């Protein structure tokens, strides 16, 4: 068994660590914010807002879950503040998830071969690999979720307090790690308690050990409940992403002003909200989304990758069939629970078919597909390589070329150049607004500068200013009148041709589709 674990670990690691810093093409805003926050924690014990060891990290516009910030500290300690350091912990946890998933499947009663295949399936799964490669919290949360269920099932089979304590810790960390899990994990644990209450009786037999379990639970749940009910941290995020903010829904609501009784009955707000939500929920039950077009590696209308490889489709059908015939009632009920509850949290939020927020749904597919291999193994392995090459090609060619600007490509280059030439200028202005089709996107170049210049957190956390830097839209004519030497870094929209002479442009960065991203303009001629 150890041999297979090692092989799957190597495969999973290869998929996640191969050119980790090159694909995706740039660190996202979240990655640089988390990376710099961890760097700040490592050196000062405070986040970049000056809070001592916070349990919720204030960021631009919202609060981020704390787990990844703390996980990044050792990585930044060993690899310094670098792109690899930021992506390493999640890539590693993504790799380990494949191994944990094998144990999870074994605990659920799947055969050894099915469980090993499940681990292999997850090791190469495009949905999971993609998100493991850019430091996202959902992967961390999924790791703890799967580990939690595995520990829970081990605890029940061994009647062990130790494993139950580990289950509590893992479930809690999952809740702390990502927003979607805040809804899913409590529902899952409730399901497990209700379904397996008779097997849980053993924990009441030893009062001391029961108390220690309760204390562990309170240590994790207490602060979370406090944040939920007495602060804005959880509420703000929920409110920001709620479907109740969607314009398409808001325009239809009456806000209590009904023109007639029949309208109050048949067109009431409650029904409209329910109808809107259900539309989002049912969107997730879509084979095309699962197997053909989900991950947005190419523009709309182009061939794309689904959440799974196309070769997984017959395995899913076959797996459902085998599951239905299975005599393992718990497995059937748990899988059905996961099928219906998996997309629930993401259906309450804005965006159609959100692939990241639905990551908690993954184990459902893993269970079913792992069961379905038996009948289609020759077919599966015959076509797998073709599927892998197809997705790899989209991932390494199409995604960078069509979407580099959406990955904030260019901010790194801008930040690095600005830091290297900082002494040559009196002021440096970087515009947060960019985009190849117009000034349509907004980023946080501040964090890219902090990250790539390794700006001392002690200097930044209380002032929220970086020496010489300003982050605002560039007004070329006003800047000229300042009579100092400034470096302006901005998209072409800020330099109308009539006012920005070509000789003032000292550098240009292009997106990977070759359209101009940022112009570097000095207010004094070279």
């Amino acid at each position: 068994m150890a041999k297979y674990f090692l092989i799957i670990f190597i495969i999973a690691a290869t998929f996640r660590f191969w050119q980790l810093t090159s694909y995706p093409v740039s660190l996202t805003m979240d990655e640089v914010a988390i990376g710099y926050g961890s760097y700040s924690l490592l050196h000062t014990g405070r986040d970049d807002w000056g809070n001592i060891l916070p349990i919720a990290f204030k960021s631009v516009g919202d609060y981020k879950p704390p787990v990844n910030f703390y996980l990044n500290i050792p990585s930044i300690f060993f690899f310094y503040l670098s792109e690899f350091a930021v992506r390493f912990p999640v890539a590693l946890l993504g790799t380990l998830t494949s191994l944990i998933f094998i144990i999870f499947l074994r605990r659920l009663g799947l055969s050894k071969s099915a469980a090993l295949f499940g681990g292999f399936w997850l090791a190469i799964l495009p949905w999971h690999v993609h998100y493991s490669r850019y430091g996202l919290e959902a992967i961390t949360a999924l790791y703890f979720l799967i580990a939690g269920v595995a520990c829970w099932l081990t605890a029940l089979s061994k009647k062990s307090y130790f494993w139950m304590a580990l289950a509590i810790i893992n479930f809690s960390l999952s809740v702390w790690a990502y927003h979607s899990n805040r809804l899913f994990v409590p529902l899952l644990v409730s399901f497990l308690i209700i379904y397996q209450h008779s097997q849980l009786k053993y924990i009441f037999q030893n009062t001391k050990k029961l108390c220690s379990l309760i204390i562990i639970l309170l240590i994790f749940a207490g602060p979370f409940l406090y944040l939920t009910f007495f602060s804005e941290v959880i509420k703000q995020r929920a409110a920001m992403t709620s479907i109740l903010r969607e314009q398409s829904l808001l325009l239809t609501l009456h806000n209590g002003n009904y023109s007639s009784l029949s309208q109050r009955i048949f067109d009431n707000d409650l029904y409209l909200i329910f109808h809107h939500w259900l539309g989002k929920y049912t969107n997730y039950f879509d084979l095309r989304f699962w197997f053909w077009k989900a991950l947005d590696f190419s523009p709309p209308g182009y061939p794309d990758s689904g959440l799974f490889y196309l070769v997984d489709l017959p395995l899913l059908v076959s797996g459902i069939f085998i599951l239905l015939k299975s005599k393992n009632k718990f497995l059937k009920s748990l899988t059905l629970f996961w099928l219906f509850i998996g997309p629930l949290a993401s259906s309450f939020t804005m965006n159609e078919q959100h692939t990241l927020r639905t990551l908690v749904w993954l184990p459902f597919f893993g269970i079913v597909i792992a069961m379905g291999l038996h009948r289609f193994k020759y077919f599966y392995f015959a076509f797998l390589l073709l599927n892998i090459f197809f997705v790899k090609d989209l991932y390494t060619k199409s995604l960078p070329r069509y979407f580099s600007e959406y990955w904030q490509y260019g901010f790194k280059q801008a930040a690095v150049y600005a830091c290297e030439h900082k002494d040559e200028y009196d002021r440096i202005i970087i515009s947060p607004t960019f985009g190849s089709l117009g000034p349509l996107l907004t980023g946080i170049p501040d964090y890219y500068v902090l990250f790539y210049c390794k700006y001392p957190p002690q200097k930044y956390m209380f002032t929220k200013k970086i020496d010489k830097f300003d982050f605002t839209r560039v007004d070329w004519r006003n800047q000229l009148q300042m009579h100092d030497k400034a470096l302006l870094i901005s998209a072409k929209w800020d330099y109308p041709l009539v006012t920005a002479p070509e000789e003032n442009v000292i550098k240009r960065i292009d997106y990977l589709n070759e359209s101009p991203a940022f112009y570097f303009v000095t207010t004094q001629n070279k």
Partner: protein
Amino acid sequence: MKIKILFILLLLTSPSFWLVLVHLPQTLSYWQHLPQSVVANIKSKSQSQYLIYIDELRWAGRSFHRNDLLSRVLYNKTLFVIQESFDFIQYAQPKLYFLAGDGSVFSPRRLEPISSLLFPFWILGILEILKNRRAFFMILYSLFMFIAYASGQKNLALLFPILILNVYISTLGLKDHRRVIPLVLIYGLYISGMNIWLSTS
């Protein structure tokens, strides 16, 4: 409750069942023009934008110029066939029947063609059909899907037989959950009332 009675009750409380019958002349017109629709659809498929996109990915866009063996293996007309297969499957997408409808007179906006509460039972019904390997039923379902797919029109006039089959599948899923049946029927009456209200207001 017997399965037949339950099926009839669910059918009668499905708004689009009535709407298709009320607009029978339009429904028949769609069926009458089916051969022309099929021919027009085949023509449009042969000029699909998707084929251009496949070529673009094979050449990796205007500036990269690669047309190596791997590119040709990965990006060819097989992708178009798979894309069409998924288009075909879209005719069975539950959202069309349980929520959004086709936006025509057969399912006005906001009105559920079939009660949305039946959706989870539809999934359970599908699982039961798979479990019992009801091949005839699956073939029949696929056949009606194919007729609508061939016409390229996703409207409930052509999909009416599938709508009825979906109500039947939901009945299979619901029959063992007796406690929920009254709730589903009451909700069915509610959306039927909404149907009348929308038609008259």
